[in-house]
């Protein structure tokens, strides 16, 4: 009965606008989308990390070869990209855990948390770059 009334009052064929290019997004939305993007990037990055773990453990020679290979700018960039995605994804994930505890759940709190997460992630990404180069 309730569902029937709902169906008659809400026209299911209303136009839907999900064109992200025409919507002005709040900062929390950018933080959320970047969390997804970094997650997808990380899934691919795991292959790089496993490759490195494999080479680092197989033998002393492969360990040395890996260390040598890390001087290659292409590898350095790939590893930096993976570490950047990891840093961002971790910070955004920790933000979720903090919000799960009931901290920063208001509109302002969410926006402040989003800004803090972006700043911390940016610092970590720069530090990762410093570490590699």
């Amino acid at each position, binding site marked *: 009965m309730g569902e029937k009334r709902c169906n008659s009052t809400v026209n299911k064929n209303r136009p*839907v606008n*999900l064109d992200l290019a025409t919507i002005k997004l709040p900062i929390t939305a950018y933080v959320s989308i970047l969390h*997804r993007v970094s*997650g*997808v990037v990380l*899934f691919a990055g*795991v*292959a790089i990390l*496993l490759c490195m*773990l*494999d080479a*680092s*453990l*197989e*033998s*002393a020679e492969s*360990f*040395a070869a890996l260390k040598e290979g890390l001087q290659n700018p292409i590898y350095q960039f790939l590893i930096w990209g993976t570490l950047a995605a*990891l840093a961002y994804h*971790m910070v955004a*994930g*920790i933000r*979720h*855990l903090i919000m*799960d505890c009931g901290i920063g759940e208001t509109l302002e709190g969410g926006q402040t948390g989003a800004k803090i997460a972006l700043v911390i992630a940016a610092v970590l990404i720069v530090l990762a770059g410093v570490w590699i180069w």
Partner: protein
Amino acid sequence: MVTAVTSFGRSGLYDWMIQRVSGVAMAAYVIFLVGFILTTPDVGYAEWKELYSSLCMRVFSLVTLLSLAAHAWIGLWAVLTDYLTNRMMGSKATVLRVVAQMALGVVTVTYVVWGIEILWGF
């Protein structure tokens, strides 16, 4: 609306919990590894091998690997069910999504098996 048949824990509540527990496990692993590398003066093959030879580290690594598999499945499921939808691309979206999930599932299992081979193969 998307049916939840391909979700990991077959319930949003389980997925929510698994996503958090696995996330904490992986974060602990990352923080530990970065800490180890930064606090060990000169990480050579001997130090590195010794670290990964201990049962503790192998268990920690395996927990991280399994966490990764569950975490990635739940996360990618959320992404796929949001973007490969019938509203965006018609009825072929379901077929496309299931194929994509199968491919990603194969990659995930490959990561786990490969990781186990690395951890117990040196």
